[in-house]
Every structure is written in C-alpha cells, then in structure tokens.
C-alpha cells in the first residue's frame, strides 16, 4: 500500500502516534469507538488487511477480556449473576467490553502501521538523526533472511551426517542447538568479512552523508498542520474533562459541550484519514480505468 509513499515519513508517523496515544490512554468510548472504526474500515479497504483467521482471533480475544473483567472488578450497581459469592455486574462487563475494544483498536492500528509507513521509509526517518543505528538496522534486516537460509542448510547437513535424524523433539531441539552454535561461528566470521568490505568502501571516513533525504514540501506541511490541529482539538477536549466517563457504580458520561463535540469529531476525522485516502486512491483508479 502506498498511500503515503510520496509524503514525508513524518506525516504518517505523526498521524499514527496521535491516533495510538489517544486510543491507548484516553480511556473513553468517545475515543475508542472512532479509533476502532477507523482501523477496521481502513483494513477492510486495503489488500492484505485482514485474514479470516486474524478476525476470529481478535474477536475471541475481545470476548475473553470482556467476560473476565467482572471477575476482578466487583464495582457496579447492577449484578447480573453471583460467581462464588461475588457479584458479576453489568457495569464491569461493559467496562470489559470497552477495555477489549480499546486493546483491539490499539492492536489494529499497530497492524495498520506496516501499511501506512512504507518499509523503505520506516528507518530513514531516524536515519538522519541516528545514521549508525539506521545502518545497523539495515544490516540486520539483510542478515536475518540470510541466517534463516544458512540455518536450514546447516541443519540439513547435520541430519545427513547422521547426527540428528531422529524425529523426536529432544533430537530436534538438540539439532537446533547445534545449528545455532554452528550458525554463530559462520555468522561471526561473515561479520568480519562484511566489516572488511565496508571498510574497503570507505566506511569510517569522516563526513559521512546520507543518500535518502526527504524534502518537506508544502503539501507535507499542510498535512502535518491538519493533523496537529485535529490532535490539538481532541487533546483540548480531553484536558477539559469532556471525554471522561465513569463506569462505577453507574455508567456516567461527562457532559458533552460544543468543544468536546468538536474534539471527538476531530479525532474521528483523524482516524478516518487513512481510510479516506485509500478510498480516494481507489476512486482515482476507477475513474482512470473508465477513461481507458
């Protein structure tokens, strides 16, 4: 997905951070509902958003959290049943439902991360501030697939000299351990060779620059200020206590004045931005195809 591929990576990063931090810490259905809705809508629009298995997993997780919460909190005025002499209350159950929704929203937004920030850009944002760390990460991302392949080859070689050809798990763990150890030797020697190749190409000379630099354009500025304004109004609503809700003993929402409504609306827009951008791309293609 490349909705933000032409944007400065700060744009999707700020968007994601705003959404996530508020969703994680605001503790209010007025935040949780738009967050969850935005994530679900976006993931349904893009390819590779959901799989059947992941949906089932998420729903089960939600149900479990909701059902278990009343066992810990006995607050709430309306007992539904009594479990081991303790009340299992409606308020606690609803609190659990909200808690599960919040967890789900956060998890789903983390899932959106890989679709929103193109992988190429992910580390180059802080490549400017931390070039060494960025290089380290880049080389780890190269080594991991390589090591996985070496591990398979080494395990096969060990199997075929007849050391660990029993299928039981002790042999399997043992063979994995031996592989791990052999892999260590191989990879450390390899590291020294790669280090030499780096040095031969001038690594360590003073005045290193970075190739990937992002120009911050007017459009980026517009996006970023929009995100900041929307976030600020949501934060204002939160700071004024307009988003507060207390679950025990009865569920009471704080009074929603105009500023609160504006704040909630702003947060909703924030959460819908990825979805709307995806739809826009989709429409653009439909329109384009109809002209072909």
């Amino acid at each position, binding site marked *: 997905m490349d909705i933000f591929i032409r944007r400065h990576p700060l744009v999707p990063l700020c968007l994601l951070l705003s959404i996530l931090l508020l969703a*994680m*810490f*605001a*503790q209010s259905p007025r935040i949780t509902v738009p967050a969850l809705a935005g994530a679900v809508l976006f993931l349904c629009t893009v390819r590779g958003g959901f799989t059947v298995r992941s949906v089932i997993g998420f729903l089960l997780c939600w149900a479990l*959290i909701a059902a278990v919460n009343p066992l*810990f*909190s006995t607050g709430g005025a309306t007992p539904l049943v009594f479990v081991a002499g303790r009340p299992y209350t409606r308020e606690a159950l609803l609190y659990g439902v909200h*808690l599960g929704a919040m*967890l789900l929203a*956060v*998890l789903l937004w*983390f*899932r959106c*991360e*890989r679709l929103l920030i193109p992988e190429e850009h992910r580390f180059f944002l802080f490549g400017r501030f*931390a*070039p*060494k*760390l960025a*290089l*380290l*990460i880049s*080389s*780890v*991302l190269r*080594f*991991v697939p*390589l*090591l*996985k392949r070496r*591990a398979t080859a080494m395990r096969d070689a060990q199997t075929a000299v007849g050391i660990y050809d029993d299928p039981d798990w002790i042999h399997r*763990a043992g063979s*994995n*351990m031996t*592989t*791990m*150890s052999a*892999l*260590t*030797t191989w*990879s*450390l020697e*390899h*590291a*020294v060779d*790669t*280090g*030499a190749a*780096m*040095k031969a190409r001038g*690594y*360590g000379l003073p005045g290193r620059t970075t190739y990937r630099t992002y120009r911050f354009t007017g459009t980026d500025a517009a996006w970023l200020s929009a995100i900041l304004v929307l976030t600020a109004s949501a*934060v204002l609503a*939160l*700071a004024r206590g307009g988003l*507060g809700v207390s679950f025990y003993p009865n569920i009471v929402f704080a009074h929603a004045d105009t500023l609160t409504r504006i704040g909630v609306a702003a947060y909703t827009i924030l959460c819908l931005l990825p979805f709307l951008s995806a739809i826009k791309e989709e429409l653009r293609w439909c329109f384009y195809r109809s002209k072909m």
Partner: protein
Amino acid sequence: MNRRLLTRICFFVMIPIVVFGGALLFREQHYAWITLCIAVLTCLPIWYDFERRETGSAELMVLSVLTSLSVAGRFLFAWLPGFKPVTAITVITAMWLGAEPGFIVGSLTALLSNFYFGQGPWTPFQMFSWGLLGGLAGLLAKPLRKHKILLCLYGIFAGFFYSLVMDLWSTFWMGEGFSIPRYVALITAALPITLEYAISNVIFLLVLAGPIGEKLDRLRVRYGLFREHQ
C-alpha cells in the same frame, strides 16, 4: 555544537514536559503513561551514546550479526512457544563485549523481531526488559563468566524479570490504577510461560555461552575487536 545544545534541550526540557503533561492529560491512565515513558526514555540516552561513539566497521557488523542471530533464533525455535534464545544471546553479548553492546543487541532484537512477529504496545517494554537485562549482565560480566551457577540464576531471574515487567504494564494499562488482584491474576496466568522463559534461558545460556564466548574471544584475539570494553 548547535546539535548538542538541541539534544540537551530535548533531554532536560522536553522529557519532563512530555512525562508530566501526559500524566496530567491522561489522568485515568497516568501509571501506564509513566511506565511507558520510563521504558522508552531508558533506551534513548544509551542509543544516543552509541550513536556518538566511534564504532569500527567490523564491530558494527558483529553487533548486527548477534542481533540477527537472536532474531533468527526466535524463528528457529518458533515451534516451541516461549522458548527463545533472545535473552541468552543478549546476556552472552554483554558478558563478552560489555554493557552497552548488550543493551543495544537486546533492545534492537525486540524492535526488529517484532516486525516479523507483530508490533504492539508491548514492543517498548520488550526493548526495555531485554536491553536492561543485557546492560545488567554487562555490569556483572566477571562473576557471570566465572561461575556457572550465577549464570543459571541470572537466567532464571531474567525469565521472571521479563514476565513481571510485561504483566506490570498490562495491569497498569488494563485496570484503573494498580490493582493487586489483577496483577497477581496475570502473574499466575502467565506462570507456565514464565517458567518456560526461565528454563529456556538457563538451557540456552548453558549451551551457548561457551561456544559463542569462545568465538567472540577468537574475534577479539584475532582481529582486535571490542578492546575498549574490557
């Protein structure tokens, strides 16, 4: 000069604002907020220090390979859930190369392996726990290398430490404030996994400490890497 000033301002002005501002803003969740801040903020100065220090190309690649090994190790043993060599490799790195490389390997493994295994709010806490376990092992390097028993104890400690940190965060985040019954319940529910962590740490440490240590020594003797840390 300018950049250093900027960094100082960042450290001494921005951080309190963020921490306290967040705590005030997220009234209901200020415990969770502060724990998150602690987890993230522990990493920053150490990463900053690493960034500023000069690291030779081969040293950088050795760190990269050790991090990759512990990420790949998570794959190699993915069929045994909870059984992963991350802590062991972090600790071994710290024992032979020092506290800072230990912290870097531990925290980076958490960040990068989650790109394969799934990011979530737990990532900062994994970075914090594994990083800290590495850093601590670096400070205890001498006794850990000398006594197998201490190494085993450290492995067990590491398993519990990791679990307790994770559960602490969950308790703060899920509950209203700190609820002891919830914390106890979470710890109890996670006990089998915690034990598995502890046991796998001990096994990995015992099996891998010798071979990896020898190889790191070989690098140090043959190529003169990581001399300043000793």
